[in-house]
């Protein structure tokens, strides 16, 4: 078998025995990262001191799970505001060390101020494993459709599998070039597709009479990220455009996870992170494959390490071996804990509403928000984006959305219709906030 025909990019890591995964984790976390960070990160020192522990108290993974206190986004923001530290006390090194750092990037800022993150990367990231699985090979073109503020890590990684990045903006305005470059350069992989981009492509295809199945026929794999994909959009992209989608998700700000060709959960790399799935309202672990809150720990980041970070993400996690042969765990993202709304004692997540909204032709783009002042509300209020050029009147569309949602979740919603653009403006380009206070 030639090197380009192999199934895995890094077989020795991707199929590593679980005992070896655990041994590496223990060595990195207990032997290196914890003492390093406790000495240097002001946030960790403050949080651990408040819990009455030091790095010396954590000698085993049982100690880790039992003693190490949680950190969440609110704690980081509170530290930032209290100490006027834009990095929230997370840094273990001075960001002005230009012999180490080359740049300072920032988080997407969907839920507030973007958090700056010093970058010391040189060369490809572990996403080479995912890009290889997508089907990218040396001398291929690879569509890189994202933003600038994520830095060079992704395009360095594309080159890391020997492919050439084709730069495209993750913007509706750049969709014509995305289609054109796909036709002319015949890329084999594409990072990233998102719900708003699916809508823009659908509109462009209708307006310009473009056959997207023909334009996209060279792709072997496309990542989909930002937020979940609804059933209608998935059918459109997979059956209509012939693309094989690989769901791609962040894991608690310590890494990423991506589906393999089995499409049975997103692999996270346990040589880079340690993930727990805990009772969303407590500290107890849930069983393998059960719904819990993702709590993440880095095994890699010595600059701004996170330990036991409560991500607010609801997930299922399994450590059972995948049919693809990889031994690392898999995660299924289910939604955000903070996006849950409880109406008359009944829990509703945006994911419960997706298909009902998509089912109405004028709102089939699946752009909607749950309006809630707090977690518990008397009425389910929705703001739904609709195609203003549809044939039905607004009142008629509202009635059909109301009925569709009622049928799906058993709760009659109060529906406000707005043009798609009103919601898309709330971006970032690859997603919209699914919950709004008003």
């Amino acid at each position, binding site marked *: 078998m030639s090197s380009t025909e192999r199934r895995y990019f890094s077989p020795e890591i991707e199929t590593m025995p679980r005992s070896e995964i655990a041994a590496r984790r223990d060595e990195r976390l207990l032997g290196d990262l914890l003492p390093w960070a406790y000495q240097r990160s002001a946030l960790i020192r403050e949080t651990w001191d408040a819990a009455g522990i030091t790095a010396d108290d954590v000698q085993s993974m049982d100690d880790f799970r039992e003693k190490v206190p949680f950190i969440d986004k609110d704690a980081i923001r509170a530290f930032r505001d209290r100490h006027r530290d834009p990095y929230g006390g997370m840094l273990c090194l001075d960001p002005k060390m230009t012999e180490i750092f080359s740049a300072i990037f920032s988080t997407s800022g969907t839920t507030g101020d973007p958090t700056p993150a010093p970058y010391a990367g040189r060369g490809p990231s572990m996403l080479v494993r995912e890009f290889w699985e997508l089907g990218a090979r040396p001398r291929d073109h690879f569509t890189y459709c994202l933003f600038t503020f994520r830095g060079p890590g992704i395009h360095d990684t594309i*080159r890391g599998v020997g492919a050439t990045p084709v730069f495209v903006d993750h913007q509706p305005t750049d969709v014509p070039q995305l289609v054109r470059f796909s036709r002319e350069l015949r890329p084999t992989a594409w990072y990233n597709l998102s719900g708003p981009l699916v809508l823009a492509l659908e509109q462009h295809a209708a307006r310009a009479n473009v056959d997207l199945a023909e334009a996209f026929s060279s792709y072997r794999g496309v990542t989909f990220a930002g937020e979940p994909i609804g059933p209608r959009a998935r059918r459109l992209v997979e059956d209509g455009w012939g693309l094989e989608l690989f769901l791609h998700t962040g894991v608690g700000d310590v890494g990423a996870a991506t589906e393999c060709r089995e499409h049975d959960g997103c692999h996270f790399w346990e040589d880079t992170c340690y993930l727990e799935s805990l009772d969303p309202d407590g500290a107890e672990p849930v069983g393998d494959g059960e719904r819990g809150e993702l709590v993440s720990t880095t095994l890699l980041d010595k600059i701004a390490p996170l330990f036991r970070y409560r991500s607010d993400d609801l997930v299922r996690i399994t450590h059972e071996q995948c049919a693809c042969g990889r031994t690392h765990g898999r995660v299924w993202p289910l939604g955000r804990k903070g996006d849950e709304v409880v109406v008359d004692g009944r829990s509703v997540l945006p994911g419960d509403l997706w298909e009902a909204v998509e089912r109405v032709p004028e709102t089939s783009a699946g752009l909607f928000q749950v309006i809630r002042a707090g977690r518990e509300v008397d009425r389910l209020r929705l703001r739904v984006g609709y195609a203003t050029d549809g044939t039905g009147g607004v009142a008629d569309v509202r009635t059909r959305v109301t009925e569709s949602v009622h049928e799906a979740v058993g709760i009659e919603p109060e529906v406000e219709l707005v043009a798609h653009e009103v919601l898309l403006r709330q971006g970032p380009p690859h997603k919209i906030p699914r919950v709004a206070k008003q």
Partner: protein
Amino acid sequence: MFAKRYEDPPEVWGVSRIVVDGDVTPWPVAQADIEDEAESLAPRLAALGLEPGGLVLVVAMLSQAAHAVPFERAAGKRGALYSSADATPFDAFRVAALVRQLEPQVVVGITGGVLDGLVDAGREPAEVLGSVPAVVAADYDAHARLRAAGLAPRRSVQLGPTTAIEGLDQNGPVYDATRWSVEEVDGELVVSNLVPRLTEARQLRTGVRGRVVEEGRVSVSGSG
């Protein structure tokens, strides 16, 4: 770094693009092209006040990678850091946040769209950018509006595959005449490479209306 690299790196660093009067031309560039443009830009960033240990905020689009990444690499050659934001109305909030948090010495690539985004968010562009020692506008709209707001913006302009950027003297955008030849043809600037590039430019139209005021310096007019 952590992940291994495929043993055979691609010859083409990436496919960026050149846009002239709305027409897009795919533009493959090599790693050597990026590094050479960075070498060329580093002294011009220094002339704008970027010091070792300082930071330049590069505002651009990903599709402009062949123009934006040399600025990023040039910061490193200067011993400085860089940060990034998209040149869109939506990402204007990031420009405002990063200026406040990171206190850059230089911001390059501000467009009229970015200023629109600041205004939409209820922010005064002069208030957001007023603390930055050197602000470089990437289009006529941004340059005119920042001047009208009482700032002293510099101007940059893409001349095909390269970038001309104005210094503190505000005497017009400066290009690297050792690497590029710029001429005026019927009121439009055209560019040719004098040193090897993966994709050759031979009297390439730039879409920029202007003139060469002296070797290495242009003046641009109107919406150029």
